[in-house]
């Protein structure tokens, strides 16, 4: 039982980081209808940036904030290239984000090298109900909870957030009431970059990232995101937690090498299930 709790807690923590990546996917997809293949890159960039900032003598806190800002900037750049040109169809944008993801490897290797990078987060263990929990886990969960709270406030109670939602539900009508849909798309990419960066900042102390860690991060995030059909952040959060716990249990009780297989199988399973409920003709209009 203790072992189970231990696995579950670590699963919830990794699930939270998946949730942040997944929300990045959702925020971008809702507004621009683009699935951003470079989503995992933001996490890698932010994680590596923190370790650089720390080694340059910057204290914890500012280093993390700066790294998230850097990831947000990366998001904006990806957005400008992927959707900045008028009339780029979403699937072409998808291929562009894929190209940017691959191209970013060159930049990342150039700056940080091709070896895994890590830094120490919150050290120490907390005793909770008979098990010991790393403080970093608690930090991850707390930051994720706060982020989701802020996001829900932002989308429901600010004009900007409502404008983003308007763009996602009907871009044409949004344009009619004077919302600049393209600018909202860029804003979504920036937000997505920041969310990905936040995930990277939180996860790097738990597992070192290397330049090609982005595929694994993106796959976990995407698998969580399609729980909510790529549209609902709340469902994505639930999906991410389920996924995180399932992976931790598989890795703990069965085999660590099968951990990443869980996300793949869950993703394929979900897609197959969703496919059964849709007709191809309805898809085109959507």
């Amino acid at each position, binding site marked *: 039982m203790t072992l189970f709790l231990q696995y579950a807690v670590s699963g919830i923590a990794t699930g939270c980081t998946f949730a942040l990546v997944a929300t990045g996917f959702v925020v971008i997809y809702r507004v621009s209808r683009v699935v951003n293949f470079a989503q995992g890159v933001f996490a890698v960039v932010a994680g590596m940036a923190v370790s650089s900032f720390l080694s340059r003598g910057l204290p914890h806190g500012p280093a993390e904030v700066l790294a998230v800002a850097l990831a947000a900037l990366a998001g904006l750049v990806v957005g400008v290239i992927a959707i900045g040109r008028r009339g780029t169809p979403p699937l072409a944008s*998808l291929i562009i984000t894929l190209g*940017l993801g691959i191209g970013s*490897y060159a*930049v990342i290797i150039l700056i940080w090298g091709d070896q895994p990078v890590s830094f120490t987060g919150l050290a120490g263990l907390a005793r909770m109900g008979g098990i010991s929990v790393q403080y970093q886990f608690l930090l991850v969960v707390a930051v994720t909870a706060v982020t989701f709270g802020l996001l829900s406030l932002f989308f429901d109670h600010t004009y900007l957030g409502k404008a983003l939602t308007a763009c996602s539900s009907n871009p044409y009508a949004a344009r009619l009431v004077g919302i600049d849909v393209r600018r909202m798309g860029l804003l979504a990419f920036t937000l997505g970059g920041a969310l990905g960066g936040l995930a990277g900042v939180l996860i790097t102390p738990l597992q070192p990232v290397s330049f090609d860690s982005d595929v694994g991060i993106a796959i976990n995030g995407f698998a969580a995101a399609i729980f909510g059909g790529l549209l609902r952040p709340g469902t994505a959060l639930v999906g991410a937690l389920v996924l995180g716990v399932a992976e931790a249990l598989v890795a703990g009780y069965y085999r660590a090498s099968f951990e990443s297989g869980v996300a793949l199988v869950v*993703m394929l399973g979900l897609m197959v299930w969703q*496919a059964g409920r849709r007709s*191809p003709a309805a898809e085109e209009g959507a």
Partner: protein
Amino acid sequence: MNRLRRRPLAFWAGLAAAVLSLLVPIALNDSQLTVYVFIGLSVIVVAGLSLLMGFAGQVSLGQAAFYAIGAYTAAILTRALEVPPLLSLAAATAFTAVVAVAVGLPLLRLRGHYLAFATLAFQLIVLSVIGEARGLTGGDTGMPGIPTLSIGPLAIQGQYRTFIYAYVTWVLVAAVLLFNRNLVRSRPGRGLRALATSEAGALAAGVPVVRYKLQVFALSAAYAGLAGGVYAFFVSYIAPGSFPVLLSVQFLIMAAVGGLGSIWGSAVGATVVYLLVQLLQSLGTGPGLPPQLPAILSYAVYGLVLVLIMLFLPQGLLPAIQGRISARRAVSAVESPARLARLD
């Protein structure tokens, strides 16, 4: 009228390309011939991927997985079960297509980006299954000693091994490209072209949309399986590391450069990208240069080419050139339209 005037040019260009590709091996040395074989194998894979992306509007990031399945099926059949190589090659092609049907049946009902992620996931699963099934595949250390292609007692070996493989590969390339050309002009091809313009429109006109998409997906996988089989016989050693995700991306770049849905463009795209990567590899490896340089260069070029092509030449290199020529000759637009417009 336009057809009458245009046809001879296309015909002679095609004939010239065919004759040239048959003459080229005579002038090449062994290592250049190896590159020539690899380019041919890429063309075969890209011909399928281009068809899938251009006509069915689906992105596959798992072509290297089908390539791997073809290679391993051919290798296991000939090495462990001692099936004649030619039969194994046919079986590898067919088996890859069957796997694609099983994977695509549910997934092709979804929008394009789902298949992109699903095929990526599929490739990772295939690679880990190959790595785990040590008894069958040799695991991560790979499978050495795959016999060469042979018909009865006639085996491709000895001094002219690479030379003959070059011809085998490029004859297959010609067959695949001709098949694609005839397919696009046939009745199902008209359905596919309708599908490429509007899925709902095609559905309304009685085109079995899902079935056609699935068949194109299976065909593209079969091509990859065929190329993979030849690859296994040619290099005689395969490992999971021979089929990284980056290889799938490379196929995608080749298809994009050649022009999605452009039949002859697949040959141009594969050749251009392969030679470009080779050139960068040789530029990046030298005394005094940092060991990561080749990797950095190839990642940068992959990214740059993909982004620039998608932004500025979405119809691809060859169709763009064809467009220029036919515009100058005041002949109607080229046969392959800018299909990306409907990649929705």
